[in-house]
Structure formats: structure tokens, C-alpha cells
């Protein structure tokens, strides 16, 4: 294998439990997003556009969809003879076997993989952020600053800072002197974006030491970065100022989808200099009938609209039948909304069918068997993939619906269909 200057490792993560039923059967990075994409399209496209051609995707949770989706990386131009996209599951070694215990441990278990490319630098990414970033510029700063690690940071509103990992810098704003995880009283509003460049020789040593440390939780933010700070290593802050969103919760996933309608100029999928690539099936151009109304919405191939779509994101092959109204919602691929149904502020999983006359959304009802305050907020309804919802069913806001054969009263699911 030829030497690479920088190798990227995407932490595609374990179960994204805060997305509830949406990650029952798929890893979070494989969740559909923004009409034509999946979440992992963003880091993969960023890598490709930044000239990084060797990308490891670390995954151990429900990897089938993700594996199939990433494949050899062809859609992102990552099917290279020397390098390319690699799916890296945990595996048995001669010394035994181990699941990935945490972010740093996952990289630790793949030291051999990285060593094969003899890189100078390693880029660590998350698989659940929506943003466009040129990692090559970040690397330039890393080299210029002769840093041991460079961490991408974003200015967040001061009142939101306590929700993030905060980087405190010296007066230059470039040198990180302290890291605080979700500080109650933040000293800075520079949030870590979970994007790291490490000089590989430095990180390699840190990972070996961290693995030996019985008190470590083997996390980049909680263990590796503080350890490097304590050794007075040079940690540089790379300031990023574009659109960035963590889509780890139902609310933030809904927000980010709506942003592609409301903040088009910020996300800008039409920038031919920084395209977001994706793998999509061949479907006919979408069709909008004479009776249909489409406002402030986006859709892609294979959709057919006879009803009304307003402020809604439709993925491929969605159908809205006559008289149906879909508002403020996200339809994942293949969703069908039957005649006269009303869908208001919902995220609907792949291939789910909403029966005729259904009423989805609206004022929450804590008595509803599907009511789920823990994961759903702001009246957002979430439906699992592959459900057939009974005609005229009513599902109020803040419900999360999955197939529950135990329910007799209030069960709105007629049947389930196979999805791939």
C-alpha cells in the first residue's frame, strides 16, 4: 500500500438511541436525510472534495444498510485502487475479540489498518453531522501551527454553550488550553465539532497509553484531548463558520431537514464546487398533477403528488394521493400518504403507508399508547419504517409509532412490510 498523507476515520457509531425507531434497524449514519441523501453522505463527500481518498468507516451497529450503502465508495469517487472506502467492523484477533468500547478504542483497534497507509496525519470524523467543510484547509493550519492535534470549533450562542464540549483558548484564539465537557458556566462559546486532525505518530502513542489506563473511558473528548493538554502538547483550534448541525435527536433531525427549505443559501446543495454525493436508485422524474399544490418543499425522482405538500421534504418514490395534505414533514423514501390523510409535523420512515383519512400530528395526548416524551418533542410525530397505518387512524403529536403486537386498544398499525 502506498503512503498517504492523511487518512480519514469516520466513527459511524453504535446505536443512535436518541433517534428511537429510526435507528431500530439501521445505524445512524445510514438514516435518510434531506430528500436525496443519507447522513453519512456529508463526511464522505467532504473527504472526497477535500482530496482525501482513504476513508475507514468504523461501525458495529446494524451495519448491513450502511455497508450496502457505502459499498466501495463509488458515488463519492472513493473506489480507488490504492486507498478508497473501507468498512471496519470489530473483529477477532489472535489475542481475542473485542467490540468497540468507545471512540478512541475504536481507533485503537484499527491501528494496524491506519499503519498500512503510513499516514502523517489522521482525521477523525463523526457520522452524524450535517455540514460542508474543506478538511484540507484545516490540515494546512495543522501543519502551519506545527500542532499535535487540531480541533474544529464553532462559535455557538452563549446560552447554548453548556450543551457542548467547549474549548477554551488563549488570547490568540488558536491555542486550546482547556477542554470542558458541557460546562455549567462556560468560559468560551467555542464548541468542539467532533472533528480532529492528529499527527499520527502522536495519536498512536496516546491511544496505546490510553488503552493501558484502566480509568479511561477511551473517548476522544473525555480522555485523549485532556491527556494531551495535560502533557502541554500543542492543540490548535480551527475556526469554522458555515452551516453545521448535529442530527443526533429527533428535534435536531427535523430542524436540519427543515433548514434545507428555510436556509437554502447556508446549506446550498447546488454548489457545484462542493457537491454532496449520494447513492440513489434510478427512478423517473417526479410528477405533479393538475390538482396538486406544492409550496416551499423539495422532492426528488420517483415522487408523485396529487395532493398538497407544504414545507415538506419528500425523498424518492413518495406518493401523496388526492386530497391528502402533508405539512412541515419529512417523508423518507417510498412513503405513501393515502387519500384524504393529513400529516402535520412528522418524520415518516421508509416505505411506510399512511392509510386514507388518517390524522397524523397536532396537540399531544399523553394518554396515547405511542406517546413518547423522552424522545419526541415539539409535537413531532415519528413513524417507524415499513408500517401500514390503518385508515382513519389518529396519531397525535409527540408520538413515536412502531409495530407493537401487544397493543389492542389504540393500535394504529395494520401490518408491517419488509424494507430494504
Amino acid at each position, binding site marked *: 500500500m502506498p503512503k498517504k498523507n492523511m487518512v480519514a476515520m469516520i466513527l459511524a457509531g453504535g446505536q443512535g438511541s436518541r433517534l428511537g425507531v429510526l435507528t431500530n434497524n439501521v445505524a445512524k449514519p445510514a438514516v435518510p436525510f434531506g430528500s436525496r441523501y443519507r447522513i453519512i453522505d456529508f463526511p464522505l463527500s467532504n473527504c472526497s472534495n477535500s482530496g482525501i481518498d482513504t476513508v475507514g468507516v468504523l461501525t458495529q451497529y446494524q451495519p448491513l444498510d450502511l455497508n450496502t450503502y457505502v459499498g466501495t465508495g463509488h458515488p463519492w469517487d472513493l473506489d480507488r485502487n490504492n486507498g478508497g472506502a473501507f468498512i471496519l467492523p470489530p473483529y477477532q484477533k489472535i489475542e481475542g475479540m473485542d467490540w468497540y468500547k468507545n471512540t478512541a478504542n475504536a481507533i485503537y483497534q484499527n491501528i494496524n489498518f491506519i499503519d498500512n497507509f503510513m499516514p502523517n496525519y489522521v482525521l477523525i470524523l463523526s457520522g452524524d453531522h450535517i455540514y460542508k467543510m474543506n478538511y484540507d484547509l484545516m490540515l494546512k493550519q495543522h501543519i502551519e501551527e506545527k500542532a499535535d492535534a487540531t480541533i474544529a470549533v464553532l462559535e455557538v450562542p452563549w446560552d447554548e454553550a453548556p450543551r457542548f464540549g467547549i474549548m477554551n483558548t488563549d488570547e490568540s484564539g488558536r491555542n486550546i488550553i482547556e477542554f470542558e465537557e458541557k460546562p455549567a458556566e462556560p468560559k468560551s462559546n467555542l464548541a468542539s465539532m467532533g472533528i480532529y486532525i492528529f499527527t499520527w505518530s502522536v495519536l498512536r502513542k496516546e491511544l496505546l497509553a490510553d488503552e493501558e489506563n484502566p480509568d479511561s473511558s477511551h473517548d476522544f473528548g473525555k480522555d485523549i484531548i485532556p491527556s494531551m493538554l495535560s502533557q502541554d502538547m500543542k492543540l490548535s483550534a480551527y475556526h469554522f463558520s458555515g452551516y453545521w448541525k448535529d442530527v443526533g435527536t429527533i428535534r435536531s433531525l427535523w430542524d436540519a431537514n427543515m433548514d434545507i427549505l428555510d436556509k437554502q443559501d447556508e446549506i446550498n446543495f447546488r454548489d457545484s464546487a462542493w*457537491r454532496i454525493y449520494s447513492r440513489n436508485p434510478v427512478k423517473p422524474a417526479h410528477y405533479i398533477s393538475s390538482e396538486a399544490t406544492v409550496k416551499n418543499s423539495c422532492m426528488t425522482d420517483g415522487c408523485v403528488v396529487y395532493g398538497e405538500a407544504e414545507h415538506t421534504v419528500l425523498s424518492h418514490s413518495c406518493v401523496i394521493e388526492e386530497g391528502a395534505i402533508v405539512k412541515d414533514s419529512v417523508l423518507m423514501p417510498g412513503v405513501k400518504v393515502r387519500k384524504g390523510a393529513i400529516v402535520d409535523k412528522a418524520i415518516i420512515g421508509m416505505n411506510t403507508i399512511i392509510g386514507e383519512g388518517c390524522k397524523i400530528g397536532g396537540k399531544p395526548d399523553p394518554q396515547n399508547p405511542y406517546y413518547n416524551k423522552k424522545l419526541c418533542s415539539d409535537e413531532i410525530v415519528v413513524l417507524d419504517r415499513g408500517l401500514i397505518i390503518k385508515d382513519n387512524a389518529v396519531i397525535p403529536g409527540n408520538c413515536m409509532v412502531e409495530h407493537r403486537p401487544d397493543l389492542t386498544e389504540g393500535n394504529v398499525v395494520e401490518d408491517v412490510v419488509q424494507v430494504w
Partner: protein
Amino acid sequence: MYNKVIGLILADDLAINLGELSYSRGIGAMPFGGRYRLIDFALSNFVNTGMLTIGVSTFLKYRSLMDHLGTGAAWDLDRMNQGLHILPPNYGLEAHSGESYDLTGLWDFYRDFSHPYIIISTCHCVFNMTYEDFIETHINSGADMTVLYNEDGYRCGSPITFFDIDENNRITGVYYNPEKPKSNNTSVGTLIMHRELFVDLLSNMMSRGIQDASFLTFLRMFKTYDIRGYKFEGEALRINSIQSYFNETMRVLSDPVRSQIFYGEYPIYTKVKDEAPTYYNDSCVVDNSMISDGCVIQGTVQDSMLFRGVTVSGQSTVNNSILFQDTFVSEGCQLENVIVDKNSVIRPGTKLIGNPNYPIVIGKGVIV
């Protein structure tokens, strides 16, 4: 079917003139239906039948076709031994002009396979079917060739081929652009025969110094060979002039034609390109239109076909029109009965109103 029937697509046709639209492309590479090229339909019908070895014979301006087809991966035809083979004319041979299919090249390619049958398909008929029953019928009939036809004759313009068919489905007459057609039976541009017969026919033509062969050449052998007709019952769109290109596009917008062509049991494959989703703003109005990915719709679009990446700005109206890839319609325009080739820009306030029987054609990359 993968080792039983081999395919041949005739991607060009000098008889079909699409004017300005065919300046830079042969008929096979002609965009159609928002995101396809005409060859996609012939190719997908083969692939959906389970045929894996397919030759594409070309002679006209085939670079755009080569770019489109690539290795055939979009049709799952990037195979080691089987797969898609582009057969450009062999210009190295002095005998060959490059103005017609290269018989030597075809003969060379097809003689070495072992598939017993060959289906030959042209590109100017758009339909969605699989050939199992067609093949079966041909084999059982014992005929030398079987040709696909339907009864759309009277509604189609020229160039067009009519047949007389007797009660045994045997072709008893072939007429090319007849003034007064005696029947309504017209070819859908697809025929099947023994691969060995095909190779023999080519060899025979070459030995007599004939360098020019078309689909019609084979049909005209009806006196020597037993050629049967097989009636195709579905919708077929015949693209043989600008007018028919326009009419058939308008016809495919509405059901049942749209569903039959695009949403049949099997998909029509084409090369997928990366585009953003299409965005509809608050004030747009869209009626009975097919729209591809990457468009931005701020104005009014009615009864129209929009290819990838088209922008229709505010206060503009697009009616009964076909806009190719990356057409930019500025603000305050009015387009009616217009075909715009790709990468063209319609300047603010432009009014272009054609007649449904004589659509206006705007060439590639033009600024109007």
C-alpha cells in the same frame, strides 16, 4: 435468457432527422422523458428480459453515447465475459465509409458467441416490455424472423414502415413511407432471428459488396424468409421527427401512458447523476408536469417536461414545453410550445410562443 438470446441495438438512423436537436447526437443519445436517453429504453428492455450480452452499433457522433453508456455499470452490464459492447465503425477498413453500420464489425462480433437467438432493436421507439413471450412465440412458430408491431400506423408520421400480415401472422408486404398505407400495422423496431442466420445474412451481404444495412433490410427479405409479426399491445412512442418528439413527450405526461412507460413492472435504467433535490418555492404553480432533480421552480410550469437542473424563475410561465438539462429561464418569461436544448439561457422578459403543430426549437448553449 442470459445464454439464449444476445442483443443488438442499432443506435443511429440516418433517416430520422431531429433537426437542431440531432446536431450533436445520434438518435440513441437523444434525451427523453426528463432523465433518460432513447437508448435507455431499448437497453432496459433487454436487461429486464435477463439478456446479458448486448452490442451497440453506432456510426454517428457517438462520443455522447459513449459517455452515457460508459462500461454499462448503470445497466449492470459491466461483466467480464458478457456485458455491454460498443461497436463503433472500423474506420481502419478502407471499404467502410462510417456512414452506416459496419457489417464487418458486426459479423466479427456476433459470430463468436454461442447464443442461439439475437434480438435486434432500434432506438426510436419508446416502450417498456420484456421479451420472454416474444421469444417463446418466435421459437414455437418455427419462423425465420419475428418482428414486433402495433396498430398505431395511421397516427404516426414518417419515416415509418407498414406491413401486410396474413392470418398466420406472416408478413406478406413491407412498405416504407407509403403514400396510402393499406393497413394500420407498423413496426415497433424490434425483431428476433437465429444468431446464425443473422451472421450468414451479414456474410452474404458483405460478399456482394453491400456495406449498408438497416433494420428495414431484414424486413424486406419477407419473400425469401418466413417473417412473422408479433403484436405489441402496450403503448409505444415513436420518435421520428421533431413534431413526434414533441407530441409523444406531451402524451407521456399523463396516465395511462406515463405509468406504462415509466412505472412498468421493471424499471428503465439510466446513468444516475448527482443533483440536489428539486426545490419549489412559496409562489410556484405546477400542473401536470414531470420534473427532474436539481430544478428550482419559482414560476409557473404547466403540461411540461423538465430535465435535470432547470431553473424557472419567478413571474415566468412555461407551458406545453420541453426544457433540457440546465436550461435557465429568467424572470418574467413566457414559453409556450418550445423545446430548449441543454445549457441554454432565456433572458428576462423573453416571450417565445410556438404552435403545438410547429414547436420552436432553441439550440444547445444558446442565450436568447
